[in-house]
């Protein structure tokens, strides 16, 4: 099957274009060896199937970040038959910089000149024919968000597969050209699929990856040493020459209005980045998201799902009684599966709503502003402003949150961001809070939820400060960030993203939670003869062993202990287990009244704080191990949040008791 790769700058609309090309036919995984997301999809054209690979969004194809290395390795070693280079028409100079690097790689390219509608609004006039001729690359104008130009693009990409790769017409100056020729001779054509021009240019740019690759060879090594001192100058010279090449072309084929008009983006930015208003606006936006999530996801939609599950339980149990099923089977299906997994499913609408709003926030471009306004606070704590983006992503799920720390270039910044991410309350923890809110704090639900999130942020920031003073000393790296123009979020892509995440959640409910529930159900019935879910069962005994640890925090019951223990497999399991051991059915009301009996408002708070802060789930621990490539940090991330959570819930319970709550 032929392969088409998508390459482009961040915010160039690459993902939207990918969705438009592949429709629902796509899947997401990781690139081998790294946790950079790999998106692939299929596309049918003229009865032929094509594989479309979405490469990470990058400004360049150097060795600056893992994203860049993944993208360029795929272009060279993955041998795509053609590369679609997505170029943002409103920001054409900067976007073409990436194109110059594709030219150097000697790959077949088609440019999708995207966001042409916005360019027109900005009165940017682009002569497509002329631009295409000068670059030597075919260009199709597209508006990916409105699916305009998609068919033409596909057609052109397929045609290009049978054409020759464009010739690189960048002039690097005499000195560099001579050096490129010299290096090419020394390489003797042994470039293992890489274009020798490209290798030579990369060597002159001081690209360590490539230099390490060719180091061992005779002659090459001597030459490397000889030119070492010059490479700093050459490196910048090459960048300049690429820009010269671009500017030359743009001058001839692109007309921009002289004075840029004040755009809506500028007006919005005036307010949201204002030194007094910036942070309050950000806090307000987050607060509104949680309130809306609560109202829509819980009150409006949550009840519907709950009634479905209740009627399912009724139907299933009456059927099982009617066919005279054994008691154990009825108990397993009703208490175990419907009670446990069902308790988790009730919260799907809520999580869906949260993902929906976070998706909109991300799609509009506001996220970059959030990092901007938080930079001051973060810097005072010894952290990098971008840390905040990974923290917000962590609200959805800590796994992508931790992956988002990859945008931090400095190791110190990154390690801190990674270690504090689990304190960001993820979607899977919401069900726990909601059960306790329904039981004790019905009238202040939104406020309690918001406070928990705030507490998580606070603890994360305190720990961040502590880490930057102890484990990871040194300067934070500089803040460099593009503030993309605001865009109306594309509903199609927000919904699709939301669905991907909800599907993940459902898959976990069907696998991990199902397995945990089954295991615990078995443990609750053995040794044979015990009253199910009693303290004498194996489950009760395990819980009783752990329980004393939590006694000082006020929830030293075996049930609470078992649920926390199960929560390490996946946080949803906490509620699933509570549903099983307390209620024995999915009936939300039964679980809530059982919780009212077993907890007090004070122990409920202390328990919620514990679930917010304690050991992250197995998937998060595994991600930390993978990202840090270290067992030590994986163990660390499993233990230190537990200690923090324990200390805080003990403090809350003890002080609360003293005050008479």
């Amino acid at each position, binding site marked *: 099957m032929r392969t088409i790769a998508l390459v482009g700058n961040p915010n160039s609309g690459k993902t939207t274009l990918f969705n438009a090309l592949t429709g629902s036919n796509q899947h997401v995984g990781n690139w081998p060896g790294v946790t950079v997301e790999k998106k692939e999809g299929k596309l049918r054209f003229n009865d032929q199937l094509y594989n479309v690979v979405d490469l990470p969004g990058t400004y*360049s194809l150097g060795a600056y970040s893992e994203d860049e290395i993944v993208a360029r390795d795929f272009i060279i070693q993955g041998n795509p038959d053609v590369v679609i280079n997505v170029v943002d028409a409103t920001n054409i*100079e900067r976007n073409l910089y990436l194109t110059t690097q594709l030219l150097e790689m000697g790959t077949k390219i088609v440019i999708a000149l995207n966001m042409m509608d916005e360019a027109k609004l900005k009165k940017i006039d682009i002569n497509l024919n002329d631009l295409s001729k000068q670059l030597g690359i075919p260009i199709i104008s597209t508006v990916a968000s409105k699916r305009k130009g998609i068919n033409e693009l596909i057609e052109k990409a397929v045609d290009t597969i049978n054409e020759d790769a464009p010739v690189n017409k960048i002039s690097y100056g005499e000195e560099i050209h001579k050096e490129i020729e010299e290096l090419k001779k020394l390489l003797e054509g042994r470039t293992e699929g890489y274009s020798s021009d490209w290798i030579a240019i990369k060597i002159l740019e001081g690209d360590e990856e490539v230099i390490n690759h060719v180091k061992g060879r005779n002659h090459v090594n001597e030459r490397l040493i000889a030119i070492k001192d010059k490479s700093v100058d050459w490196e910048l010279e090459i960048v300049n020459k690429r*820009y010269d090449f671009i500017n030359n072309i743009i001058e001839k084929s692109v007309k921009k209005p002289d004075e840029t008009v004040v755009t809506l983006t500028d007006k919005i930015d005036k307010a949201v*980045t204002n*030194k007094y208003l910036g942070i309050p606006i950000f806090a307000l936006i987050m607060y509104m998201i949680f309130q809306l999530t609560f109202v829509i996801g819980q009150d409006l939609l949550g009840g519907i799902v709950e009634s479905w599950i209740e009627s399912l339980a009724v139907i299933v149990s009456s059927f099982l009684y009617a066919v005279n099923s054994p008691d154990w089977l009825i108990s397993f299906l009703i208490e175990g599966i419907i009670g446990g997994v069902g308790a988790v499913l009730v919260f799907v609408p809520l999580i869906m709503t949260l993902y929906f709003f976070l998706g909109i926030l991300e799609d509009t471009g506001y996220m970059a502003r959030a990092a901007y*306004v938080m*930079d001051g606070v973060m810097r005072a704590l010894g952290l990098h402003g971008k840390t905040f983006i990974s923290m917000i992503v962590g609200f959805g799920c800590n796994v992508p949150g931790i992956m988002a720390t990859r945008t931090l270039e400095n190791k110190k910044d990154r390690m801190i961001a990674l270690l504090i991410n689990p304190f960001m309350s993820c979607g899977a923890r919401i069900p726990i809070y909601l059960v306790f809110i329904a039981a004790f704090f019905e009238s202040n639900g939104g406020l309690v939820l918001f406070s928990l999130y705030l507490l998580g942020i606070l603890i994360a920031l305190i720990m961040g400060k502590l880490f930057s003073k102890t484990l990871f000393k040194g300067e934070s*790296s500089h803040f460099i960030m*593009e503030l993309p123009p605001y865009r109306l979020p594309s509903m199609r892509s927000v919904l699709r993203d939301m669905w991907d995440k909800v599907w993940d959640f459902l898959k976990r409910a069907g696998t991990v939670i199902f397995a945990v529930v089954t295991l615990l159900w078995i443990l609750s019935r053995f040794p044979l003869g015990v009253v199910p879910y009693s303290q004498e069962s194996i489950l009760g005994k395990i819980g009783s062993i752990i329980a004393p640890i939590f006694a000082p925090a006020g929830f030293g019951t075996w049930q609470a202990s078992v649920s926390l223990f199960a929560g390490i497999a996946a946080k949803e399991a906490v509620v699933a287990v509570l549903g099983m051991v307390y209620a024995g059915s999915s009936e939300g009301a039964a679980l809530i009244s059982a919780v009212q009996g077993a907890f007090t408002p004070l122990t409920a708070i202390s328990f919620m704080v514990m679930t917010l802060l304690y050991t992250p789930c197995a998937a998060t621990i595994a991600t930390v191990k993978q990202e840090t490539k270290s067992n030590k940090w994986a163990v660390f991330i499993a233990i230190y949040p537990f200690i923090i959570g324990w200390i805080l819930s003990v403090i809350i319970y003890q002080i609360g008791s003293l005050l008479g709550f």
Partner: protein
Amino acid sequence: MTERTLVDLQPCQEGKVNSISGGRNVNKRLYELGLNKGAKFKILKNDVGPIILSLSGNKLALGRGLANKISVV
């Protein structure tokens, strides 16, 4: 005359990059983002927090420490 840097410019003022001394990696990243020698820009915000500038139509936020290492004419 002492060298002027990005930090010394006021909002709405325009300028041109003279040189950047942020270290090899940072320099290169800025170059690749279009902030290379001779690049024309306009300051949009410079009070507290990173400086925001407009550079051929796109907006870039730069930390103050780094902005101080970018000399302008």
